[in-house]
């Protein structure tokens, strides 16, 4: 049993469960002393204003808007092998730059709770690079444009921004869905694509048992026809509502008639879906699963659900409830880190050791980041590449198998070996995991045959693999 004080354990929970691992500002060796007096206050200070998306990226890593990227890709498109190759390499360039930038942001952030929330919502509104070549170059821009600006806003705002983003419209095929009785539909004999409408209700709002039918799917699909990409002859690249594609008339969704004209019909439907009690429960369950336990208690879900409905989906209110409720603080190691979380927290721990934050070598250069991203391919969690619109799973059973366990342990060794940091593993372990570790782990870290193996052991320890 640990002999640590409640204060130390709470600081550990704030840093690992809510944050992404030790923050530089907390001091060398991943110390948590500066926040021990008020871990909840430290967390609340991180959700006041959004951080800048910045940071010491190299000059060739320039991030661009999705509109620009879509135009660039369209400009290069063609049937020749050379054109196809050019499109592929453009997609790869943007994808890598975005992946590196996002990783760097998470590793260096002083608002790690905010960065965790970005990942959470980006996963809730998954757009995956592995579906289509057109998606790959814009997945990062999607997160920066549709998710990041709304993390401290309301759920209805984020829902609208995510659904109307070109990346989502392409990913779930709404960009090419046409109302059968619209002008274009009648002329071309083309029709609906119900993919996005179904996933809005199943994955983004109500949840699969949230009380909708196949008729509701078709109604919502009709309601959001015309939500598509700006045609090239009008400049291209962005979102547009195109009346010619929109299914005319009134449509009945979840028992309510929507007779608005044009785009406002869909916006009204989205607002109603966003504030539906099923949505409150669905969002509350996902947040509880992420911050409390794989199978959260019903009462904790109810607490969050109440906040959601009382605040009309105000996300800051949700986070404050999450921080103030007791459950997340009671069991400090109940969650297993996903591979992505494991890599980021390990990189943050190493970053906290570095004295030279401005150098390109802090804590890694671009190339090291790119290697880490390759590693994520082995872990089957490449950035922006969830296997389905449901996003990455969020339970230990989904991430821990014999093979995955071995991969994680082997990676910790490779990471420690590549860095060869000048640290005393035992001192580092006392600061980073001492609050929750029994004597066993610290003893074997101390007895490790070399500093590299000591550090690897710290990273492989259950106290570091969990959060």
């Amino acid at each position, binding site marked *: 049993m640990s002999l640590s004080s409640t204060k130390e354990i709470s600081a550990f929970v704030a840093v690992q469960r809510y944050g992404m691992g030790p923050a530089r500002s907390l001091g060398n060796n991943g110390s948590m002393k500066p926040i021990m007096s008020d871990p909840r206050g430290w967390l609340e200070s991180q959700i006041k204003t959004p951080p800048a998306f910045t940071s010491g990226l190299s000059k060739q890593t320039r991030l661009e808007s999705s509109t620009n990227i879509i135009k660039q890709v369209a400009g290069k498109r063609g049937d020749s092998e050379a054109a196809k190759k050019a499109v592929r390499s453009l997609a790869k360039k943007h994808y890598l730059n975005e992946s590196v930038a996002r990783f760097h942001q998470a590793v260096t952030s002083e608002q790690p709770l905010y960065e965790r929330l970005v990942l959470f919502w980006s996963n809730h509104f998954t757009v995956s690079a592995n579906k289509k070549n057109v998606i790959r170059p814009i997945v990062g821009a999607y997160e920066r444009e549709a998710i990041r600006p709304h993390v401290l806003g309301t759920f209805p705002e984020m829902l609208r921004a995510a659904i109307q983003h070109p990346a989502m419209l392409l990913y779930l095929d709404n960009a090419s869905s*046409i109302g059968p009785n619209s002008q274009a539909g009648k002329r071309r004999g083309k029709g609906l694509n119900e993919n996005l409408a179904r996933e809005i209700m199943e994955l983004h709002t109500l949840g699969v048992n949230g009380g909708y039918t196949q008729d509701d799917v078709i109604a919502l699909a009709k309601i959001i026809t015309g939500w598509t990409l700006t045609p090239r002859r009008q400049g291209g690249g962005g979102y547009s509502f195109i009346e010619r594609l929109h299914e005319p008339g009134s449509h009945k969704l979840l028992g309510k008639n929507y007779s608005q004209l044009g785009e406002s019909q869909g916006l009204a439907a989205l607002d109603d879906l966003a504030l539906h009690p099923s949505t409150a429960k669905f969002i509350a369950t996902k947040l509880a699963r992420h911050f409390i336990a794989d199978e959260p208690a019903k009462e904790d879900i109810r607490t969050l659900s109440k906040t959601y409905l009382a605040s009309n989906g105000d996300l800051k209110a949700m986070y404050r409830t999450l921080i103030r409720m007791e459950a997340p603080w009671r069991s400090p190691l109940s969650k297993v880190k996903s591979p992505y979380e494991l890599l980021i927290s390990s990189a943050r721990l190493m970053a906290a050791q570095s004295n030279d934050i401005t150098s390109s070598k802090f804590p890694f250069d671009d190339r090291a980041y790119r290697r880490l991203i390759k590693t994520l391919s082995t872990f089957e969690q490449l950035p922006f590449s969830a296997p389905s619109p449901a996003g990455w799973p969020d339970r230990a059973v989904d991430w821990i198998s*014999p093979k995955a366990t*071995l991969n994680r342990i082997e990676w910790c060794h*490779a990471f420690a070996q590549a860095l060869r940091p000048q640290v005393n593993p035992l001192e580092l372990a006392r600061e980073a995991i001492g609050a929750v570790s029994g004597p066993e782990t610290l003893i074997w870290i101390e007895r490790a045959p070399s500093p590299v*193996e000591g550090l690897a052991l710290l990273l492989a320890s*259950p106290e570091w693999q969990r959060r």
Partner: protein
Amino acid sequence: MTEQNPPISGKATSIHQISRRKLLKAWGVGSVLGLSTVLSGGLFPGQAFAAARTDKRLVVIILRGGMDGLAALAPYGDPAYRQTRGDLALDQDVLLKVDPFFGLHPALSPLANLYKQGEMIALPASATPYRNRSHFDAQNVLELGSDKPHALNSGWLNRLVGAINVLEGNTRKGNTRSKNKAGSPTSPVGELGLAFGSGLPLIMRGDHDVNAWSPSAMPDTSDDYMSLVQRIYGNDPLLSENLTKALDLQARSEDMTGNEKKMAKQNNSNKSFLNLASLAGRWLGDPDGPRIATLELGGWDTHARQGTEGGRLANNLDILARGIASIKQEMTKSTDGASSWSKTVVVAMTEFGRTAHPNGNLGTDHGTAGTAFLFGGALKSDGGKGRIIHNWPGLAKAQLYENRDLNPTTDLRAIMLGLLSDHYGLSQAVLTRDIYPGSQGLRPFMGLV
């Protein structure tokens, strides 16, 4: 492919691997003994592979995303085929016309060969009992073997492992390897089931010991380090149990595939399916290998531009067909030779079919009935040829389910009830109680094997 992965000759054991085995004995036992209640398959599940047990093999390939069954096996003889399928209709001259009514997609020519040898049965218009159109719930039903989503807490293949163990335990009284306490729900003879992939799919999850494996692309670490990790995992049953299983599987894997690192480096999903399929063939062909295996292949959710004889769907069908062919190829090359293939059934199943009509984007949306496929030397042929078993519902508008999807006239569970009963000699009482609860009213498809 086969050139890259030469067949295993004998049981050459590297020094490295011996040391790992020793290591397991030296360290594994000490740190793991405290967990014997958690570890259900014994300390060295791999050694349990050698225990006497069923020689029947079952491979389940889960096709995630909803395979378009009407593209894989085109009912070109249906009078409404051209009209309903529209731009997605396949021309008769490209179809592989194994039957006067049904033709295989041209990308499936390796499977047409199996058909000609009596080693394929197609079951069009089949579906799980699930009738809504969510991927995630439909896969949940497919994998749990339940009649509605989230109704059970284990996968049907995991429960099958349990049922076979009980059966074997009853029929082979001489086998007393069991280390379990009486009344334990766990396997008496060790692990029969292996998922080829880095994690356990839902269909394999449950109380009975099974494993997952795929080749590793990570650099080797030192044995010292690994043994220390085992020490500090003593208080974490989840990590400890998974690490012990992994080290054991790794030792076995090094036995059988010296070049697995090279294999692992070719890591994109298509190649990785082909690699895993041939690895599965090799392991299943081994007399001491696993008996029940899963593979997964995604990429079937073709909402847009799915293509006809070429294109996105055709590419995926090609990967599937080559993967299945390589299972047979590797099995017949293995130590157990053709006899293991003659005891094998490979099932390829998907969560649902797709809409019969194309949607607005030359793709298809989520539908209902799909097509299931069986392969293997254990299948009963029709005078040396394959079979297509169906109660064809028709493609005309009025014949479709909710005017849009192929009507489900065959319950996938009825197929499996017959197959599992014939293949393993399991009674319908056991099958409808343990494997497919809620399926009592169905008439099992007997005589598939």
